[in-house]
């Protein structure tokens, strides 16, 4: 799976299931954690989604903005572990 495909899957998941705004476009460099788009209640969901869809484990200690804060950062993290 290439980065673009991964980005579409993640962006659609975040817009639909986390933000509850299915039509919301999420830019690759748009802040996710520091902006509050993903709040702490949804961090575990995101980690589970990434593991189920991309086979990559994100440790709970990594669920913060210093590990990733946007889609590009998240995709880079996933690809580095695949």
């Amino acid at each position, binding site marked *: 799976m290439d980065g673009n495909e991964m980005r579409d899957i993640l962006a659609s998941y975040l817009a639909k299931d986390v933000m*509850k705004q299915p039509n919301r476009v999420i830019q690759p460099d748009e802040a996710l*954690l*520091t*902006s*509050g*788009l993903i*709040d*702490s*209640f949804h*961090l*575990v*969901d995101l980690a*589970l989604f990434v593991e189920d869809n991309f086979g990559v484990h994100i440790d*709970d*200690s990594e*669920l*913060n*903005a210093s590990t990733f804060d946007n889609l590009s950062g998240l995709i880079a993290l996933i690809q580095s572990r695949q």
Partner: protein
Amino acid sequence: MPTFSDLLKAHYETKPNKVCVTILQGGQPDRPVTYRELVHGAAGYITTFTKNGIQPGDVILLILQHGIDMLYAYFGAILHGAIPSIMPFLTEKLLPERYRADLAALVSVTQPTSIITYRDFETEVRAALKPGQDSVKAVIVSDQVDGPCLPDFPSFGGLQRKPEDIVLLQHSSGTTGLQKGVALSHQAVINQLNDYGKAIRLNDSDVFVSWLPLYHDMGLIACWLMPILLGYPLVIMSPFEWIRAPYRLLQAVSRYKGTLSWLPNFTYIFCAQKIRQRDLEGVDLSSWRSISNCSEPMRWEAHQTFYERFRELGLRYEALTTCYAMAENVFAVTQGGIDAPVIFEDIDQESLQVDRVARPRKGYRPAIRMLGAGKSIPNTSVSILNTEGDPLPDRHVGEVALKSNCMLVGYYHRPDATEKAFINGWYLTGDYGYLVDGELYITGRKKDLIIVGGKNIYPQDLELLAYEVPGVHAGRASAFGIFNETTGTEDVVIVAEVESSDPAQQQKISDGIRATVTRGSAVALRYVHLVGKHWLVKTSSGKTARSANREKFLKEMQEKGQEF
């Protein structure tokens, strides 16, 4: 009547080697702390307080995470005779300038003479202060505090305090909450702990396990002061770590044979849905004897979901209990499910909503399943009052009012707010409910308060944030909470009147409101609903009528087929 310091001194002298707190920190070994270490660490803080001219009776703000510093600093303040108050830590999403404004507001009302924080956070704290103009004499950085030392009890100000003196302040979040600090006396807290301890049948095999924040009454009273002051072991983890790794709560219960926990309703569903099986290997929950659902509306469905998921790990159904609590009563008002399983009843929906009488369901009429919050604890009387302040008979819905020997001293430096809270000696909770043979059921809220994940949020703070967005005018937005069955807590909604009907402009305003409210408050805004002029319902005095706007919003959404 002993004070906090008397109790700590007694534990130090009679069982210095007993582990009172075990601190769980992700990635590091668990840290057990004995009463000896606790008092020695606190004594180090007292040396620092004295050097900085901090007097008994002064307010000390603590801006620290769960950990050894918090433990030593908190009880150092107590033994010094000062008044500790815990301020929530800055989160990733909160704008630093908003945090500074909140801190400045808290400083202006509570007039602390010192603030304790970490080195990394010192600059942030100092940015909120006005040296020479505000009350703060010292910002104390935790790594500069004097090390643990032997206690010189006769010199400790804490041992000179009287039972009726204020011992601590407790705040909820946001500008409004921070300016309404609940001031509690030694005797109020100790009366609560003794009587609540009886209600939950505290015994020598009890072990408390908690992930709760300490700036909240549930975490501070039930899962910090009660075990430490009464001498029961406590196992704690930080809410910051728990929300990212909820399985750690269950692992901790298993490892330490935990018996008692307090959880807000959403936690039951959160744990049931978000914990991987692999993180539960070998976990045994059979020691858990009371898990009190507390601090936000409690639902039967949440208990069922939790039980079904974890029964195979030995969780007992009888362990699912309920508690109705209020910071102004120190903590617990009622407790259910200790001697017998929690009571529930199916109530005729129309009768409850229209007649405001809770009549048991007949036949197949639509019903609401109500979970009992239990009976009042020994020292607290509960009454249901009508709008005139007269008591109502059983099953009639009215405002829940309290009388007890563990009431707040007052809202700190806010006699105006304190006076408004009482009628004929009864404290008005702002919650609606009914009684049946002493069992209390909570049906709703009179006060305009949003509770998300157990956290109290004042809607006026969120509306003020919305007014900062260009295109939204003052007085033209309404914030409220809507219960979300899927998550077990409330979602925050803002309805705002806008003049523009251009979709691009509306999207911009909507994004602006969402971002400003989310980054300016302790919650994430879930729904923004933009409407035309004159949509909002106002009260006769021109204020936004939040409950009426909430009803109107729900009706519109229902007509559109959108579910919550």
